[in-house]
């Protein structure tokens, strides 16, 4: 046996060295690759089986954890949704206030105080609103009320912390106005359904549809040149003494949230002068 070993040890070493050199050089790669493929597949099967087994035993714990996490995330979503709603409301409020500030900047001579609309008169025949500012804030009866769009009305009654505003759409309201283009004077009147109408327009006045309606300042109840609306229709008959017209108000009275009261305008009471 020993002579056989002595004789074959050298060729074996030579073969191993040669094989090692070829293996390192990459000459056996195709062969090794084909030989390793079943082994890799088997290894993959072992690994996946093990993972499945581990998952099977650990699943109940994970479901509980996932349920807890899900609940946490749902709470987070609800919190964020309520935050989004609050931010949207704030954004809408900021837009309204920005418009009011911009309106106030256009007329720096006037002293405005902002007030929130907190209610509406219970009677459907009366067009009055309630605001959360009163005599404690320097508000007096008769002061004009506007918003960023135009004339809203005037203060009809005041308490310490609140006031009642008569809207320009009220059936008892009458405002002296002038038409922007034709410069004709007329009287604006409200109605029970919220419509506005112009009366006492002189027959010779050339009034056009679309003309802007502004306060004239006559009578001393309102400052001049506050926008009220636009003429939408004209009724002129030759046998009438005056023309009449319908007016679309610029203020959306169904969406009133914040108004401005002009504090430094004192209405003039001309009642003693009337015959």
């Amino acid at each position, binding site marked *: 046996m020993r002579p056989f070993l002595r004789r074959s040890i050298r060729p074996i070493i030579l073969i191993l060295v040669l094989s090692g050199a070829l293996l390192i050089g990459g000459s056996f790669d195709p062969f090794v690759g084909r030989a390793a493929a079943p082994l890799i597949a088997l290894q993959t099967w072992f690994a996946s089986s093990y993972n499945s087994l581990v998952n099977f035993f650990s699943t109940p714990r994970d479901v509980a954890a996932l349920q807890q996490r899900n609940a946490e995330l749902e709470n987070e979503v609800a919190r964020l949704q309520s935050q989004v709603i609050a931010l949207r409301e704030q954004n809408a409020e900021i837009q309204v206030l920005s418009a009011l500030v911009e309106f106030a900047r256009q007329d720096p001579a006037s002293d405005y105080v902002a007030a929130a609309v907190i*209610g509406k008169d219970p009677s459907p025949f009366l067009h009055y609103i309630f605001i959360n500012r009163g005599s404690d804030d320097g508000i007096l009866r008769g002061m004009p009320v506007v918003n960023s769009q135009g004339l809203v009305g005037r203060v009809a009654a005041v308490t310490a912390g609140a006031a009642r505003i008569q809207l320009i759409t009220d059936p008892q309201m009458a405002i002296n106005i002038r038409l922007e283009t034709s410069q004709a004077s007329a009287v604006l009147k409200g109605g029970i359904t*919220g419509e506005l109408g112009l009366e006492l327009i002189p027959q010779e006045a050339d009034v056009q549809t679309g003309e802007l309606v502004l306060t004239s300042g006559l009578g001393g109840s309102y400052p001049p040149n506050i926008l009220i609306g636009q003429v939408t229709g004209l009724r002129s008959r030759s046998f009438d003494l005056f023309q009449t017209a319908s007016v679309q108000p610029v203020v959306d009275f169904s969406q009133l949230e914040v108004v401005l009261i002009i504090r430094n305008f004192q209405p003039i009471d001309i009642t003693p002068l009337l015959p």
Partner: protein
Amino acid sequence: MVWLIGIPTILLAAMLQTAVVSRITLLSGQVDLLMLVVLCWVVQERVRSVWEWPLAAGILLGYISELPVLLTVAMYLLAAGAARLIKNWVWQAPVLLLFTTVFVSTLLFQLLSFLYIQLRGAAIDPLQAFNQVTLPSVLLNLLLALPVYAVISETAHWVIRAPFEE
């Protein structure tokens, strides 16, 4: 006890009326929650003293509304009187009694308000007022009468069952 429960209820109804209900309109008509609350109280079988709530509601409405307080008090007292009168006629049908009372009272309120505004100098077309304000208001009041009646009925049951009542 009637005053104790009546004043907060009427105050709450008035606040809801001015802040919320007045903004819900059909054409130009609107619900009169305060009137419904008072009428639903008055027509309750257990309620004997019917004038306290209408009086309180009339004074409160006169304070918050542009309508004069004498007019609002008169409106509510007349409505309560009409409700008691109708109750004597249709006492066996509470729903019919409720609807009849609400219908008559709404017409009465609207008529008196209309007359007052006319006297103040506003030129209102009566037909337009009837079509645009009165009829929609009647419809809305009738629609809301039953839910309000259910709430007030429970309140009356709770209040009048109390041992120190009357």
